[in-house]
Structure formats: C-alpha cells, structure tokens
C-alpha cells in the first residue's frame, strides 16, 4: 500500500459518494467524539493536563538518544533482548530470524501500528508462517483482507451487517448480526490460537527508560494473551515511544485513554519488565524489543517537524477531522491516516510519494485542539506544503526527501502574476478594470483551476471598484 496522488483523488471522491461508509463513520465518530469530550470535561483544567503531556513528550524527545540507550541498558539487564532496525525490512528480518530459531509456525498479534508500517503479516506469511490478528477490529479487517481504516478502531468503516456477512462467509458460522454473538465467535477461534501460538507480537504504548518497562494499553485482553501465553514475545516500537520516567505514566495514560476512547483508564494497563523468571509458571521465556527508525531519525533532525514524533497514536485527530469523516481511512492509502497521517506519512515516505496528502486538509485546526500533546498539526501541514512547493532550483537541503516535488508550474506562475499585479498600482488598476469590463465573458466556474474550483462559482466583479466608489462619494 503506497500513497498515490492520482488514486487519492479518485478514492476520496468515491468515498464521499459511498452512503454506507458515510453513515458508518458518522455514527461511530459522533459517539467517540462525545465520549472523548465528556471524559475531558470531567477534569478540572484539562488544557493544563495537555500542556503537561506535551512537556513530558518534548522532554523525552529532547533527550531521545540518551533515553534509548538507557532503555536498552535496563531492558538488557533484566534479560529482554533489544534489536535495532533502520528500515521496515530490517525489522521484519529480525522477527523472522527469531521465529525461525524458535521453530514458530503460528504468530498471534496484539494491535501494533508499527507492524502495519513494516507489513509484517505479509512478510511472515510469505515465509510460511501463519499470522493471526487477535484484536477484534484487526481480526475483522484481516478476514476482510483490508488494511485498518483507523489507528485505534481498525474496522470503523464497517457496520454489523457487513461484519456478519464476513463472519458467515469466512468462518462458516451461522449468520447473525448480534454483536455479542459475533464477539463470542472471535473469542472461540482465537482461544485455540493463543493456546498453540509459538510467538506473540505486540506494539508498545510507552517504553519507560528509567526502569526498562514496556507498557501496553488495551481493553480486550488480547495484548495480555499475546504477552503471556506464547513462549516468545516480540514487542515492536517506533523509537519515539520511549519516555524518561515512571512518574510520566499517570499523565500520559490519562491523556491517551481519554483521547482514544473516552475512558479514564483502559481495562488492562500491562507493564512488562522481564521474561519469565526462574520459578515462574507462565509468561514468555524470551522477550524481544525491536526499535524501529524507518525515517524517524530524519524527522527528528528538524526542530519544528520533530513535534510529529510526540504522537501517542490516540486517534483523536482522526475522529474530529472533517476530511477523515468524509473519506474514511482507506482513501489515504497510508498506514497512518487522518491529520497525524497527513504530516507523518509525507515525512516517512517522502514528499514525492505522499506530498499530496498535505493538501487534504481544510486547516480548520480542530486536530490541534484535541491533540493530547498539542502537536501543531496545521502549522506542520503548512510547513510541509511549503517544503513541497518550494522551487527546486533554490536547492534548499534542509528538508531532503521530495522537497519541491509538489511544485506546480502553472500554480507558481499564477502566484507570480498575482505578485506582479499587486506590486504595481497601475497594473492592478488596469487588471481590475479589465476584469469588470469582461465580467460577462469570464467562466462562472473555475473548473480548470482545481477540483476545489469545480464545486464553486467565481465571484462576480462589482460594477465599480472600491477606489472608484470612494473617489466619487458625495462630498469628496
């Protein structure tokens, strides 16, 4: 799955016309926004909590190399094996190597966006290892052979009837639209898998450098199963997931669950600090952590864009985004969709590939308001648009991948013309006079300019300009 400017236009247009999708998204996003708002309104001074969360993440980012080394040191001291991967391919190869050494045939997975980023499932399957998603939403989209359409609620684009059809067809279960019954089907199927899987793969919500602790936030218990039942646990994390102190956890977790689902805390908040110790009767014998870069260190090198790495992956910006609500998650053709995806994807994949996503925004600013760590998403969108449309001749090397790739010569020329007209009063007066005179001849729609223009009418020039009106006002 790769972002593609041409397909994005087609997919987005198609999605806005898909009544079922719109209905499914409206229903779920409406509920989730209300829950998030209620959870924050129940707090005194919620904005202050966001500011503290922001400060914690910025502090951790400022000390990133030091904290990663400390994390590695603490984890290693207690027997957790740490691996570093510069690219998605390297990360996958590390997981495969562990699986082969342990003779793993079946992998069960908790929800992990990093493994979506590396396309781990497809990779392992290609090497003959069965992979099963255990989070219910992930399990649904895996059965449907689709990518997740939301980073927290992967099957948000589907309604119960669509899921009922899927379960009936793929699992051979009797058809039912009863959500409890469908959940029970998934429980039955996955139970057997937990019992026999040779490896559990999960993500990491927070990695605590101070103590060497991996924290997982979840509601279903699939994360606990994946980290308890199989003999090997592999946790995959982006390198930005490290935070300095244990005492940072209360604030970050308060913000994460409230922003993601409106819960004060998730059902399970699971802290892992070592593999099974001598005498313990369950838990994995081996615990591995794969720390993934995959473009993050280049994002990190820019003081402004670095804010992107503060993201907790709560999904609140998706839930409130007017664009996401209308086109859904699949149209982006990116692992990270919605507002955070629009700033993260072009930085990870390069502006040539994903620069068009920075334009898929109304810049309404709602995402920045709900962000639990106050990432200035609209500012970063503007910055990336600038990077994308700067003249390549200027050869600015500050932002490497794809700078200037989004520049459109016609657009640049129009702006140049605009600048000339507004610089010289004589030209300006001549041009506006011409426009007034030719008003009747101008097209009513700006169809040729952009898709945006296709839906809008051009304003009709006034018969007399403001200058003229003022000059001719009575008593002038």
């Amino acid at each position, binding site marked *: 799955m790769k972002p593609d400017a041409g397909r994005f236009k087609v997919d987005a247009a198609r999605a806005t016309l898909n009544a079922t999708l719109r209905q499914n998204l409206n229903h779920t996003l409406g509920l989730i926004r209300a829950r998030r708002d209620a959870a924050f309104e129940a707090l005194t001074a919620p904005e202050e909590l966001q500011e503290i969360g922001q400060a914690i993440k910025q502090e951790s980012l400022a000390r990133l190399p030091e904290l990663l080394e400390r994390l590695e040191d603490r984890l290693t001291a207690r027997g957790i094996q740490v691996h570093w991967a510069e690219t998605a391919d390297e990360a996958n190869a590390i997981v495969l190597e562990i699986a082969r050494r342990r003779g793993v045939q079946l992998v069960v997975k908790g929800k992990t966006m990093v493994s979506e980023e590396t396309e781990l499932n497809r990779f392992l399957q290609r090497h003959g290892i069965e992979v099963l998603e255990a989070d219910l939403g992930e399990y649904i989209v895996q059965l449907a052979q689709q990518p997740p359409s939301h980073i927290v609620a992967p*099957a948000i684009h589907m309604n119960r009837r669509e899921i009922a059809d899927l379960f009936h067809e793929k699992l051979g279960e009797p058809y039912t639209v009863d959500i409890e019954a469908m959940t029970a089907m998934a429980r039955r199927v996955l139970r057997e898998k937990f019992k026999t899987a040779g490896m559990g793969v999960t993500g990491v919500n927070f990695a605590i450098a101070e103590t060497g602790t991996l924290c997982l936030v979840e509601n279903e218990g699939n994360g606990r199963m994946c980290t308890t039942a199989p003999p090997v646990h592999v946790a995959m994390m982006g390198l930005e997931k490290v935070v300095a102190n244990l005492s940072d956890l209360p604030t970050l977790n308060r913000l994460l669950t409230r922003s993601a689902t409106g819960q004060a805390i998730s059902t399970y908040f699971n802290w892992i600090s070592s593999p099974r110790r001598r005498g313990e009767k369950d838990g994995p014998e081996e615990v591995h952590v794969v720390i993934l870069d995959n473009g993050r260190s280049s994002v990190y090198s820019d003081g402004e864009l670095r804010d992107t790495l503060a993201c907790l992956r709560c999904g609140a910006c998706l839930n409130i985004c007017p664009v996401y609500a209308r086109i859904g998650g699949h149209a982006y053709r990116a692992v990270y969709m919605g507002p955070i995806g629009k700033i993260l994807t072009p930085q990870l994949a390069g502006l040539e590939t994903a620069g068009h996503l920075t334009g898929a925004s109304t810049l309404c600013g709602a995402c920045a308001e709900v962000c639990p760590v106050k990432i200035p998403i609209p500012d970063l969108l503007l910055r990336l648009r600038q990077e994308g449309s700067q003249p390549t001749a200027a050869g600015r090397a500050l932002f490497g991948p794809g700078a200037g790739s989004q520049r459109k010569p016609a657009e640049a020329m129009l702006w140049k013309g605009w600048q000339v007209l507004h610089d010289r009063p004589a030209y300006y007066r001549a041009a506006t006079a011409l426009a007034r005179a030719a008003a009747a001849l101008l097209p009513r729609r700006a169809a040729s300019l952009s898709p945006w223009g296709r839906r809008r009418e051009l304003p009709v020039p006034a018969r007399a300009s403001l200058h003229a009106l003022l000059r001719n006002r009575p008593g002038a």
Partner: protein
Amino acid sequence: MSARDNILNRLRIGARTAFAHPNATTAREAEWAAKQPPIGDPARRFLAEIGKVGTSYLRVPDWTAVPDAVTSWVREYGISSVMTGTTPALEPLREHLRAQGVDTRILAETAETQREEIFNTDCGITTARGAIADTGSLLLIPSAQEPRLLSLAMPVHIALLERANLFPTLADYLANNEFRNQPPTNLVLVSGASRTADIELTLTVGVHGPKVLLVALIG
C-alpha cells in the same frame, strides 16, 4: 557500523537542536492533580468506579469471611471449577470450596503442563497487590505463586483485595518506590472485565479475558 550506532548517531546530531522544555513535569502533574475533585474515602471511590463498568463486589470484615463470600459467588454464577495459585494464605478458602464440592484446582506446575486445565476452568482466584481508587483499577503483580493466566484465562476472575492496600491514585502507588526499586516481571492494572467496542462502538464484555470480574474487599 551497526543499525544501532547508525540510528543513535543520527539522533545525536538532531539532539543538538535547541529545545525549550520545562523540566519539572512531575511537580506540575502533582499540582494539576491537587486541583481535581477530591477522591474522598479511597474504598468508597474504588467501589463506585468499579461499579461504573459493571464489576460486582462484596465487602467482608476479614480473611475468615472470604470463603463464604466466594461460595456465594460460586452459586450465583454457577461455577463448578476454580483454580488458584499456591498462595498459602488461600488454603482455608481451597479447603472450604472442596468441602462444598467445588472442583478446586491449583496451578502448581507450569502453564505448559497444565494448559488444558487452565483453559477449561470456570474461575480463577487471585489476591491483588492493591488497587487504585480514582480509576477503579486492581493492581495485580502475578508471581511464581500466582501466575498471570489466573487473572486472564478463565471466564470468571475473583480478586481478593485488602482495604489497607488501596492507593488514591496511580501516582501515589508509584511514589512508594516499590516498583522503581524492583520492577516485577509483570504488573497489570485491571479495571473491569475484558471488553471491546470494535463493532459499531458497541460495548461488549468478555472478548479474550474474563467475562466477569468480582472483587472481595477485605477490611
């Protein structure tokens, strides 16, 4: 050069970028927490919070009253088999349950050797290290005596919690340095029965973990 060194070297260059960051976030967190509505009596708050997510509880005056409380649940939920760890403190409870004709098992070997038994028992019983009042969270620290699966694999989980071990907030628990000094293999905060909302955001209880969570508050 290894991937590790390449990554860290790139980050070290980036880390030089000047960055304004306030340092004392922990103090700010405490200040912020002090502004929140008071927690009041931790036990009352804890029970109110767990009630919100459908967790039932019984209050008992001391450990001697635990067996009767558990027996009443065994009847109410039609439990025919239970499993505990090897915790000596639970021996009176195990004896009582056996006397009541309940199939009472012990996870004494390993999860691998007792796998079928573990996944085919109705109810797991564990103690709790403590609980967090403001979020209604049990604080479980599984151990060699009380393995992790006891609070995870069975459809019903009964947790035995002493009132003296309630902490008003998570920050209060962390402040006692117990975790910091000796991080356990696994610590888990449990705030209800296993649940999902992945289909139409409709809350459904009992996905991969217990469908029913019961708490006996002792003291």
